[in-house]
C-alpha cells in the first residue's frame, strides 16, 4: 500500500513537472507571439500614419493640383461682378 502511494506521488510529481514545463513553453510561445505581433502592429500603425499624413499634406495637394493642371493659368474664373443676369 505504501509502495503504491509512493509511486502515485512520484507519478503526480512527474506529471506536475511535465505539465508546468509544457505550460511554460506554451506561455513563452504566447509571449513571443504577442511580442512579435505588438511590434508588427506598432510598425503597421507608423506606416498607416505616414500614409494618412502624406495624403493630408499640402505637398500632396500641390502634386495633385499640378497633375490635374490646376495651375494659375487654368484656375477657375469667379464671376464677381456680373454685367448681365444669368438666370434665364
Amino acid at each position, binding site marked *: 500500500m505504501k509502495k503504491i502511494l509512493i509511486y502515485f506521488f512520484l507519478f503526480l510529481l512527474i506529471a506536475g513537472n511535465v505539465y508546468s514545463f509544457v505550460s*511554460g*513553453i506554451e*506561455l*513563452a*510561445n504566447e*509571449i*513571443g507571439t504577442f511580442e512579435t505581433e505588438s*511590434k508588427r502592429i506598432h*510598425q503597421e500603425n*507608423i*506606416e498607416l*500614419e*505616414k500614409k494618412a*499624413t*502624406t495624403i*493630408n*499634406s*499640402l*505637398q500632396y495637394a500641390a502634386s495633385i493640383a499640378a497633375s490635374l493642371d490646376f495651375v494659375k493659368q487654368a484656375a477657375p474664373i469667379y464671376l464677381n461682378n456680373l454685367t448681365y443676369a444669368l438666370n434665364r
Partner: protein
Amino acid sequence: MTKVKILLFFFLILNLAIIGKLFCIQVLHSYPSISGDYLKTKKIYPERGRIYDRSKHPFVLNQNSYLLFAEPKKISSKIELSSKLDEILHMGESTLEVRIDESKYWVALANGINEEEKDKINNLKLKGIGFEYGMKRYYPEASLAAHLLGFVGKTSDSGDIGYFGLEGYYDKDLKGLPGILESERDLLGRPIFIGTQEIVNPENGRDLILCIDKSVQEISKRKLKEGMERYQAKQGCVITADPYTLQILGMVCLPDFDMEKYYEFTEEYFKNPSISDVYEPGSIFKPMVVAEAIQEKKIKPDDIYNEEGPIQVGEYRIMTWNNQYEGKISITRILEKSSNVGMVYIGERMGEKALYEMMKKYGFGEPTGIDLQGEVSGYIKERESWYPIDYATVTFGQGIAVTPIQILRAFSSVINGGMILRPYVVCSIRSQDKQREVKPKVERIIGSKTTSEILKKMLTSTVEHGEFQWVKPKGYTMGGKTGTAQIPIKGHYDPTKTIASFIGFAPADKPKFITLVILREPQASQWASETAAPLFFEIAKELLVYYNIAPE
C-alpha cells in the same frame, strides 16, 4: 547488477555527450550571438517626439527604417549577392562587395532602408542577410519649415541627435529616455520563466506643438520663392508673428535644405538667417528711434523740422536717399519720406546717451531667447568707441548689426504698447501624461500704449503717403516701414549690393500679425520700396483672407 551497470553506463555516455556539446557551443564555437541569446540585456530605444503645427497638423513624424546587415560566413557568393542588392539599393556593386568582409561574422550594409525596399529585398530570398529595426524622421510637408525644424543626425555611437532649429534646441525633450530589457531566453528566443525577466519601459520623447501655422508658413514660402525669382535676390526671409504675444506664426528663409538628405548640403544652408545672420537694418530702424524720442517727450508727432539740405557731421555729409529736401516737415513726414537728415535731428534732440541706451532697451546686442538653436546676439560697439558720426548714422539704422528676429521683436514693441517680449516657436510640450503650455513672456515694458497708438498712426501714414505707392489690399489699413541697407565690404559700403526689407502690420488699429520681409542683394532693384514692400503686401493680402479679416 548487470542491468544497473548498463543503466549507469548509459547515463555516463549521455552526460559525456551533453558535456561535449556544451564544450562545442561554449568554447569551440563561442559566437558572441550565442552567448547574447541566453541573457538578453538590451537597450529599448524610445520613440523620438513628434512635431506638430498649432492645428496639430504634423510637421515631423517617425517612420519605420531598417538597417540591412549581412553575415558573410553564411554567404555563398558575395558577387551575386551584391549584384542583386544593387538593383534595389543603387549603392554600387563594388561598394557592397567591399562591405561584405568575409573575415567578419556580421557587417552593416545599408542604413535607412524603407518598408518598400525591405519587401523587395525579402522577395529575393537571399541567404546571409537580415534587417535590424529602427526609426527615422519623416517630414510630410517636406522642407516647408527646414530652418525652423533642423534635422536629426547621428552621434559617434549611432544614437540620434538633433541639430539646428527645434531639433537642436529641444533635443533632450524630443529624444526621451531609453528603457532596458533583461530577459533570459532559450535558443528559440522564448523567455525562460525561472530566469531573469526584467523590463524598464522607455519614456518616449515629448511632442512639440508649435505656434507655427502651416498655412501661414506655406503662404510665406510660396510668396518668398516667387519674390526671390522676380527680384533675383540671393537670399530671403519672411517672419510672421503675433505682435502681442510674439508667437512666431511663420518663419521661412530661402535657400533652405532637404532635411531627409541633410548630408548632401553644406553647413551654410543649415543656419537659419532669421536668427543667425546679422545685418545693418537701415531705415527699418527709424520707427524705434522715433518711438523712444516720443516716449521720452523729446519730440511730438506734429513738431516741425526744417529739412533744408544735407547735414555735415565731422568730415561726413548726410543726405536723404534721393537728395531732395522739402523744407518744413512734421515728424510724421520724416518717417513717411524716410528722411535721414530728419532722423539725425531727432537723434540730436534725444542726446547721445539716450540713443545708446535706447538700443539696449530694445534688446539689440543680446539674444532674444527664441527657442531655436543657433541664435546670435548681433553687435553694438562699446559706447567708448562711438564717434559723433556713429550717433548720427545709427538714427537711420547704420553702424549696428542686428538679427531679423531682433528687429521683429523691437518693432512689435513699438505697436504693442511697449512690451519687449520673448519670441517663441513652441506653444506647448506634450509628454505621455501631461501637457505644458508655454505662456508669452514680457521681459520689460519700455513704452506706453499712447506712444504705440501714435506710432501706429505714423506708420499707417507712412504706408499711405510714402514716396512710393504700393498695390495694397483694398479696404484695409496697414502700417509699415521700408529699409534699404547697403552691405559693408572691407570698411566701405558697396552701393550696388543692398539688403531690402519691409516690416508691416495689419489691420492697423489692432494688428493680427506683423511680418518682416528681407531680401538680400535683389538685382531687379536695390530699393526695398520696389522689392520687399510689394512682396509684403502680397503676403499680407493672403494672410488677411486666411484670417478672415473683413475690410473696414
